[in-house]
């Protein structure tokens, strides 16, 4: 099976986020950047499907130089090939998906995997958009995937339960936590990944239809109060919730 995985480099979820002086992006400063956690599930799934049916895994990342770090991390996990789609910024979500679809198209991928969302923009849209541009089926927020020949069955997590979908290949899946347990890169994998040649392509530039106006911090909550200690504090808490907060 010819498998593609779309990956992105993002700030570590533990990072303290500071807004840059231009107030339109974050200050890269002291942040540790990592492979998007949801993309780890996608890479792992690609590797497992390859181990099951044979084939190869190609990881693809759109971005500036930082995208290469995401690709190297995925190669270290065991991916075979990597493509860096060079983009210096200015694309909106639609533009990102269009260019990724352009790169994927015509390369004969049977299965395309992506994380359900990137933990920086939290949009969760690129996977579905890429599938739409490629005119192939997709299932998002997948917690279980079974591929048999040229068909797949996917379990999609929704409010209160799950939906089961079937689709023919080629198809695109976005990975949710629980799909698998991603492997750690082995030292051998890390060394091998450094030697891999990464294919470079230029992003298709499209004029954005959505522009960033500003990035701000959320409003500060007014300081709260510790009502008391132990069970003795319960009556006062309930009184405050009823009379002051008016939520009971």
């Amino acid at each position, binding site marked *: 099976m010819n498998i593609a995985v779309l990956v992105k480099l993002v700030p570590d*979820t*533990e990072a303290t*986020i500071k*807004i840059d002086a231009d107030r339109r992006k*974050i200050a890269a400063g002291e942040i540790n950047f990592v492979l998007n*956690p949801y993309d780890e599930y996608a890479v792992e799934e690609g590797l497992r499907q390859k181990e099951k049916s044979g084939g190869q895994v190609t990881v693809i990342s759109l971005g500036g130089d930082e995208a290469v770090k995401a690709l190297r991390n995925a190669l270290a996990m065991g991916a075979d090939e990597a493509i860096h789609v060079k983009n210096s910024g200015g694309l*909106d*979500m*639609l533009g990102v*998906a269009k260019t990724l679809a352009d790169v994927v198209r015509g390369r004969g991928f049977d299965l395309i995997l992506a994380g359900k969302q990137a*933990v*920086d923009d*939290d949009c*969760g*849209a*690129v996977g*579905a*958009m890429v599938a*739409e*541009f490629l005119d192939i089926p*997709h*299932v*998002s*927020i997948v*917690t279980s995937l079974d591929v048999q020949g040229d068909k797949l069955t996917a379990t*999609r*997590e*929704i*409010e*209160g*339960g*799950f*939906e*089961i*979908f*079937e*689709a023919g290949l080629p*198809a695109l899946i976005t990975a949710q*936590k629980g799909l698998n347990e991603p492997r750690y890169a082995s030292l051998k994998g890390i060394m091998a990944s450094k030697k891999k040649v990464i294919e470079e392509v230029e992003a298709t530039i499209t004029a954005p*239809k*959505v522009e*960033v106006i500003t*990035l*701000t*911090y*959320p409003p500060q*909550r007014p300081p*709260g*109060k*510790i009502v008391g200690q*132990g*069970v003795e*504090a*319960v*009556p006062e*808490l*309930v009184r405050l*919730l009823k009379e002051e*907060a008016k939520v*009971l």
Partner: protein
Amino acid sequence: MNVLTYIESRGGKIRGAGLEALTVARDLAGKLGGTLNALLIGEGSVTNAASLGNYGVAKVFVVEGGDFNGYSPEAYREAVISAMKASDAGVVVMSSTSLGKDLAPVLAARLDAAFLPDCTGLEVEGEKLVVRRPVYAGRCLITLSATSFPAVISLRPKAFLVAPGVETSPVVTTLNIDLSGKVKSRFVEYKTESAGKLDVTEADVIVTGGRGLKDPANFVLVEELAAVLGAAVGASRAVVDAGWRSHGEQIGQTGKVVNPTLYFAVGISGAIQHVAGMRSSKVIVAINKDKEAPIFKLADYGIVGDAIEILPELTRAVKALG
């Protein structure tokens, strides 16, 4: 500019999140000088259409039939596009539920539209749609604007209130959608893991338990408080990873993001990843043994103490309110 709202239904009933979207869409249509239109898809659509008159809708489009009983990205996409054409709408609004999070990008790609997902704020400035949405797990807010139409907007559930409008008698039209060759993935079935349990993303009150409960058996104390409050039960990542609770209850960066009126964080320290999922709750109450726990910096009210002792007392006190 006319506005179309896709109002989601489940099991033949309109979802509250869909009415939140409709309320926002009504305001938007007013500011854009256009009509307010709605689309219902699936079981119960014809029955529920007239009720939308309470919200000031001019036209309701309904799509029913076997292909629409379960979600299908392509079938629902075609239904929305058909309704947009029938209402001459340049803006589509929906809630960013699991379904909306999938359908909105599909539509935006098909329509080559300005895409404004999961918004918590929406304004019209002259000709421009200006939205606000959380990014970096809610650590920042980004303000975006769209300068062209069509536009596809999705709204974060519970970020907006539902409000009835000037009553109308909507014109209800059944749309016949030609799906030949278009449906690509087949919906097989819906499995509920918790029949009748309130989902955290739909709840006004949530009681979330963490490791401070010490033992999975103690979660019954959380459930009892939730029951008297009419609340949903949530879980921290730690207790989900430990196998005490299902991932569907997990709140946080790798779980669900919620926006209730009242949130109880019980035996939860308040790590960034958990806070990411509940920081926009209107009122936050924390119960934790450790007075230095970061959760107390976020909470509006806190009790320092053992959750196992405090929960039953709190349940009794809430019950006594009647």
